[in-house]
């Protein structure tokens, strides 16, 4: 096999070739590094590439495998993480000049767990500054969407999605506070999961809104996302917010069917005035596909969904503003104009409104829980449209624009489930007329990742969207 073809293969195929001794981890890592070397200057998916460290780890993995000590399905396979995660000895910039000189002395728990499973860290991925929305002048290069280089890959886990879409690395980790895994996954045509709040440790994930921050996997397929989740999920004594609820068999869940499964299509999401008609059609077609496989589809109404973005903004933005208060006072000019203005505005929201938003967030969670007593999962779009153009101006034209594009923005369909904490998966569900990917969002009960992954895997098996490749050289 030509080593240049290795990055095109899925984790399962690579693991089988490794098991048979037809390739080595050094081969795989070398092929990924070559592809990164060729494409990263265009895509700006990576901020830091640890070629020496990755090749060293690959040699170690090969020796371990030779001694019969392969640690599992991810042994010897490369991964990369959003630059908001600590990786010992590598810079963790959080996409910002504020952290340009920060080098953590330990791994984030999720990084440590993947390394313990034998996976090999290739490097740190580009992101929107501080994980806080669009960045006009990204300090570490402008991330580009592999499907159309004039379009954003979305964010804030921009590189986590674009690197998978461009086959620079098979699996990545992202962080999701308002949609920052699911949004770029949808816009780049890959799979992304925000797990249940407390399912995955956030120790070593740089915060933006502690109430909603989540860590989760991205990959080209649902089963690969399940493989990574299997490794990273579970209680962590270093993150008291993690749950002791037993970790399910997520990989096994991807082999289940949907016959008789009850799917609830969220009315308020599908009827949203900001939803592009093309994306609505693609999502509806996706639902119909699941129905043909035997699922039972009903419409579900969540009345508080109409206020979910306001609830999200009321809680998340002030938390971020408090975290960065000192930086706003002393180093404001080092923060990109877009997140800086957003943090400044968020700093001035009245405390009574924040408290009100929190109260209603709890009500929204109850509403979603109640809906999920009658159905197994909820369905809806992930984003309002395909990938927008890369931001080119900082100037808002109106207060209305401030809300729809700058404040609530593209996270209008994802942020409700950060508020409630339910697990939510985005899977590719087609392409717009502009050949831009769209995503179908699948939301499950608390700790219901198995159901979400099962439905996603069935949908994937019935469609071919996940097999398409962006038109890169």
């Amino acid at each position, binding site marked *: 096999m030509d080593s240049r073809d290795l990055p095109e293969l899925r984790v399962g195929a690579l693991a089988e070739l490794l098991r048979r001794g037809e390739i080595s981890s050094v081969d795989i890592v070398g092929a990924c590094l070559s592809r990164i070397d060729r494409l990263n200057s265009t895509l700006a998916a990576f901020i830091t590439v640890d070629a020496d460290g990755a090749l060293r780890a690959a040699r170690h993995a090969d020796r371990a495998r030779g001694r019969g000590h392969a640690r599992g399905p991810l042994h010897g396979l490369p991964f990369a993480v959003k630059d908001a995660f600590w990786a010992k000895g590598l810079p963790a910039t959080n996409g910002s000049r504020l952290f340009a000189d920060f080098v953590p002395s330990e791994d984030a728990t999720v990084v440590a767990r993947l390394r313990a499973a034998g996976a090999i860290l290739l490097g740190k991925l580009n992101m929107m500054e501080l994980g806080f929305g669009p960045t006009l002048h990204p300090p570490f290069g402008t991330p580009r969407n592999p499907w159309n280089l004039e379009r954003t890959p979305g964010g804030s886990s921009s590189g986590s999605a674009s690197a998978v879409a461009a086959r620079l690395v098979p699996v990545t980790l992202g962080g999701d506070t308002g949609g920052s895994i699911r949004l770029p996954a949808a816009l780049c045509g890959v799979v992304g999961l925000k797990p249940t709040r407390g399912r995955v440790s956030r120790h070593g994930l740089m915060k933006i809104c502690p109430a909603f921050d989540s860590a989760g996997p991205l990959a080209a397929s649902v089963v690969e996302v399940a493989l990574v989740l299997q490794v990273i999920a579970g209680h962590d004594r270093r993150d008291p917010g993690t749950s002791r609820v037993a970790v399910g068999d997520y990989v096994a869940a991807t082999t289940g069917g949907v016959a008789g499964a009850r799917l609830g299509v969220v009315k308020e999401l599908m009827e949203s005035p900001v939803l592009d008609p093309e994306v609505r059609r693609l999502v509806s077609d996706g639902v119909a596909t699941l129905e043909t496989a035997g699922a039972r589809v009903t419409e579900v109404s969540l009345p508080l969904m109409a206020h979910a973005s306001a609830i999200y903004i009321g809680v998340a933005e002030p938390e971020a503003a408090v975290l960065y208060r000192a930086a706003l006072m002393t180093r404001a000019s080092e923060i990109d104009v877009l997140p800086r203005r957003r943090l400044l*505005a968020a700093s001035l929201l009245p405390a009574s409104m924040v408290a009100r938003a929190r109260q*209603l967030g709890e009500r929204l969670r109850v509403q979603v829980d109640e809906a999920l007593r009658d159905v197994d999962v909820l369905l809806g779009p992930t984003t309002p449209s395909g990938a927008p153009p890369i931001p080119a101006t900082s100037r808002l034209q109106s207060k209305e624009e*401030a809300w729809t594009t700058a404040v*609530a923005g593209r996270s209008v369909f994802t942020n409700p489930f950060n508020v409630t904490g339910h697990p939510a998966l985005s899977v590719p569900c087609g392409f717009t007329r502009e050949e831009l990917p769209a995503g179908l969002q699948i939301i499950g009960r608390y700790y219901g990742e198995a159901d979400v992954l099962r439905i996603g895997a069935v949908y994937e098996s019935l469609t071919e969207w996940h097999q398409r490749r962006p038109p890169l050289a």
Partner: protein
Amino acid sequence: MTDLTPAEVRSLAAVIGLTITDDDLEDVTARLNASLEHLRGLDALEPPSGLPSAD
């Protein structure tokens, strides 16, 4: 309800020790007013009696 003016926004920021530059002021004002408008909309979800409920 009337939107905050840029001058009012700048004064509020100064109360908590933040300085907003001339270049940022208009956009920060628009963003804040947009958020306030939508957060005020949450007040419409209060119980009719205006008193807290037991649940």
